């Protein structure tokens, strides 16, 4: 009786069998969901990392600019193309309104991404894999990615970052082996038409 105080004895009323069963089932489901998340950290292969570092935007920019030429293999649409060696650190920069550089990765190899922004919040959205992470100014989000498929992937921005937000895209190539990497190297070294 939702408009009047309950009748005397409301507290002692026994719970009906169906409601009791449903509450029991629901409780078990809830506990399973909780355990599942912890279990995925142990057995699953997709978990957000807990590693982040504090870093001033200017400082991150310095790292990014020092790192890009090291493994640069060319340029695409005016954006440097970088092929970092497997296992190395990757400084993918989010800035109004670009992702830099274009990356060339090898399938099955792990790369330590350092995601950071030098201005506003951005959303790292890898498509069509559909993996999404937040990118902050002032923080380096350390995520160790291992691409499991080859192909061309787009990085979109999916956190609003001003009027040019929808123009903020980047690119990641994943190649099978060193020979394919070489093909890409030649493609991006050649002068673009």
């Amino acid at each position, binding site marked *: 009786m939702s408009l009047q105080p309950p009748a005397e004895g409301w507290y002692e*009323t026994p719970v009906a069998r169906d409601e009791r069963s449903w509450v029991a089932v629901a409780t078990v489901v809830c506990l399973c969901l909780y355990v599942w*998340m912890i279990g995925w950290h142990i057995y699953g292969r*997709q978990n957000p990392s807990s590693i982040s570092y504090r870093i001033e935007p200017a400082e991150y920019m310095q790292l990014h600019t020092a790192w890009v030429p090291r493994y640069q293999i060319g340029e695409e649409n005016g954006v440097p193309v970088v092929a970092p060696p497997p296992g190395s650190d990757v400084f993918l920069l989010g800035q109004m309104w670009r992702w830099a550089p274009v990356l060339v990765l090898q399938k099955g190899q792990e790369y330590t991404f350092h995601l950071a922004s030098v201005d506003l919040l951005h959303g790292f959205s890898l498509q069509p894999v559909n*993996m999404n992470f937040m990118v902050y100014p002032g923080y380096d*989000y350390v*995520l*160790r990615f291992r691409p499991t498929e080859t192909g061309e992937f787009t990085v979109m921005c999916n956190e*609003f970052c001003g009027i040019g937000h929808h123009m903020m*895209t980047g690119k990641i190539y994943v190649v099978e082996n060193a020979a394919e990497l070489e093909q890409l190297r030649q493609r991006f070294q050649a002068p673009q038409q």
Partner: protein
Amino acid sequence: MYRAPIFRLCEITGLRVDRTGERLIRANAVAAVVAFLTAVVGALLLVLTRWQTVHLLPAEWYYRILTLHGVNALIFWIVFFEIAGLYFGSTIVLNSPFCAPKTGWFAFGLTVAGFLLTNAMILSGQADVLMTSYVPLQAHPLYYLGIILFALGALVGVFLFFGNLMVARQAGMYGATLPLFTYGLAAAAIIAVITLVSGAIIYVPTLLWAMGVLPKLDAALYKLVWWGLGHPAQQINVSAMVAVWYLAAYLTVGGMSVNERISRIAFLLYILFICLASAHHLLTDPAVSSVWKVWNTSYAMYLAVLASMIHAFAVPASIEAAQRARGYTRGLFQWLAKAPWGNPTFSATVLAIIGFGFIGGITGVIYGMEQTNIIVHNTLGIPGHFKGTVVLGTTLTFMGITYYLIPLVFRRRIVGMGLARLQPWMFAIGIALLAVSMIGLGVLGVPRRHWDIGFSMAPFRHSFPAVADLLWVLFALGGLMAVLGALLWIGIVVASVFFGPRLQGAEDMPLPIATPVRTQHSSTGKFVAPGTFVLTLVFLATFLVFFWLNWKWLAAAWEVR
């Protein structure tokens, strides 16, 4: 400052109504409808822009109207209506006077001032920061001031609710235990305190930062505290909505909670744990650890989800038990088939329960898990989820109950009852279509808050699978239908409140108030609501299917740790 309240006796409910309190309820409800209209106009423009076949607004105006829509739909409409609801539940329902009417008007003045100032700043193009206004994105200081004024006024309103409870308690209007409806509102009010205090904690420094007094605000700290406002604001809705479900079950079929203790424990779980879910917004973010994420995102081991699942049984069960007591006992579902479907409050409530559970609830739990959030964060699936909770759930519920509140509080008859019967269906089907297509687009990776997914001016283009085109058409269809349903509701409300024939007596009541039926279920060995039990099992099965799908999709993604 004692004021002798002027009561009128309601001949329909037999309740004593404090006229001053009633005027405050009316004022807040009218403001709610104005905010809702603003949000709906925004929604129309947004649907016609994101559906890129039309692509109505230029980019600048798209983000501007998106800010307007978010703030008005998720904050102003909902909070104004909830304040009206809180006043209703703490005065009229308890036969009790409003504790401090002058303060009530002061609070109303603050909220209206905040509402006007915020919207003025948005429309003048000085606050293109979206509802979340993530620092270091910066708006004009007056925008933040507007929100602060609104939050302050709302906070005063919430404390007046507690004041009303104390007055009623002292006058012995409810003994020790509140009516369940008011109890649910009390839960909402408690969550509102958490929400509004978090809002103050974050918006005051942000205002100072925008004024140049504070040199810098940490982006992570801002986002953490802001969601202490942003998410619990929607949990107020959940709690208030469930309270209204119990009320609607009572008014339409005379349904009563099959076990008051269990229903109250569910509200208790909301109060204690639901606000932890603010962490849903930080699952793919740096700076907070997985331990913090898993604990908070799960509302401390899913205790608030347990609460929602309890209500998901208890509310339909209250309807079923009442119907069965009335003699509709054949089979599992005769009670449902013979329900008063012609009563728009009833149909709105049932549709809201189904929509909230199957669309909003299932996606909410799965998208809010730490790892699956990776494949949905900031995709269109997220607004798809909360179209299911806030719009199909809360908004439709609030729409439904107004068909009783207009005659009871505004003392007017409903203009266009035939249309009113149609309205919940139109709105529900529209929003359901909209939400489901958004969820589908989210699965494809389509971003939310994005003006051009054709990437016509971007250095690299991405094209989404062809099925996206079909989903966009459904999105537009659903969106337009929902807008029509919303405008229809606004039309009925405005016509009834301002031009409707005055209610002369109980015989003028457009919708009957059902006679409560005493249900007997003293034996624990019995099923009180077998039909509902089956329905909840169907819900559980649907949940498991969607759970399995999402984790399968996640497992197919790149490895990340």
